[in-house]
């Protein structure tokens, strides 16, 4: 055994982090690196994925019914009844109202603060990356529009991709328009929609050529992404 055996490469560090073994300064230093290093984030992700399989050795235990009820009460502010309670109410209950969206974005970009010069962006992707749509939202002063580019995949034959906005507090998804294959599409946004975008979820669904006939997604949801701020 030589000193080499104890050498810690990034992969070992990532494994220790995924196991929750890094503490104090060591952990703070590692998390600081995570912000900037995509490769390190992927290593942590890979260890999380591998280690998660260990849970397969654990015997399942059926939780008591009251847990599900407690979760629904917390999330939806009701029990079995009143399933129509609004999203707005749910989010107020969940996140304590104003600032919630900003807090969520803050978490997503590791504590960064949204400033006026930040650009809003999103990547809407299928889990297997077979469909990817890059979204940029132009700053308000340059006209309100959303710029969507399909960078991978596209609509199925004789079908269309429809873009949806699911804002915090929204009753249901709102269509932002249809995406054409292999083209940069610019879709107009209302001032109200623009305000809702930070922290909102965007999604694309598979729809008939003219778009959803019902005004709500009717086909498969192909990908989702969250709108985050990128420093400008």
């Amino acid at each position, binding site marked *: 055994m030589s000193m080499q*055996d*104890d050498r810690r490469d990034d992969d*070992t560090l990532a*494994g*220790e982090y995924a*196991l*929750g*073994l890094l*503490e104090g300064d060591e*952990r703070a230093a590692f998390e600081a690196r*995570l912000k900037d290093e*995509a490769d390190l*984030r*992927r290593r*942590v*992700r*890979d260890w*999380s994925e*591998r*280690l*998660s*399989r*260990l*849970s397969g*050795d*654990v015997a*399942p*235990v*059926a*939780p008591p019914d009251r*847990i*599900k009820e*407690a*979760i629904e009460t917390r*999330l*939806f502010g009701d029990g079995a009844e009143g*399933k129509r309670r609004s*999203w707005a109410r749910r989010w107020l209950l*969940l996140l304590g109202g104003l600032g919630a969206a900003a807090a969520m974005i803050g*978490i*997503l970009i590791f504590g960064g603060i949204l400033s006026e010069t930040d650009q809003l962006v999103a990547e*809407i*992707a*299928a*889990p*297997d*990356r*077979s469909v990817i749509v890059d979204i940029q939202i132009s700053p308000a002063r340059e006209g309100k529009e959303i710029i969507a580019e399909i960078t991978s995949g596209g609509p199925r034959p004789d079908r269309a991709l429809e873009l949806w906005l*699911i804002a915090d507090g*929204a009753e249901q*998804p709102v269509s932002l328009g249809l995406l054409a294959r292999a083209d940069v599409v610019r879709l107009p946004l209302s001032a109200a929609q623009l305000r809702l975008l930070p922290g909102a*979820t965007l*999604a694309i669904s598979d729809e008939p050529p003219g778009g959803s006939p019902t005004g709500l*997604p009717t086909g*498969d*949801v192909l*990908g*989702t*992404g*969250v709108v985050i701020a990128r420093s400008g």
Partner: protein
Amino acid sequence: MVSDEIEDWIMRCGLGDRQAFDRLYTATSAQLFGLCVRILKDRAFAEDALQEAFVRIWQRSGSYVQTGTSPMGWLVTVTRNVAIDRLRAEKGKGGETSLILDMIEAPDPNPEDVALARSEAQRITACFGELSADHADAVRGAYLDGQSYADLAARFDVPLNTMRSWLRRGLLALRECLKR
């Protein structure tokens, strides 16, 4: 349980689909509760942890895709993080902020990498069989019992540095086996 179905339900949760949340809960809650019970070793704490885990799952389902993990990998990671936080809080180590693993955004640039990482992960059980018993138990103890280096050193009655070196060797050996 089909992985594709679970993935679809998670993504529909991101769109606020409560029926999808119902199905996801029905299909996965027993496995995730088993994990909470294993980590916390106390039914009441485990019930709290499962509740918190599903609240997070619903709230964060919109950013699931950006994590680049498999659907069960994501659910297990979110749940474990909640349970470990609870465990550490109970032990009075409340100073540590919670783990952020389930929020890490690490999508792979292309579909082949995603498929490779997931198929590699499936071999972990076989690779555990190749580790020395002590090294394997140390890694399992950290993951499934939430044990710290100090806990593990006490459990195996070895100095702290010896435990660190065991565990790192265990991780290296696992990685070598997975890459084969």
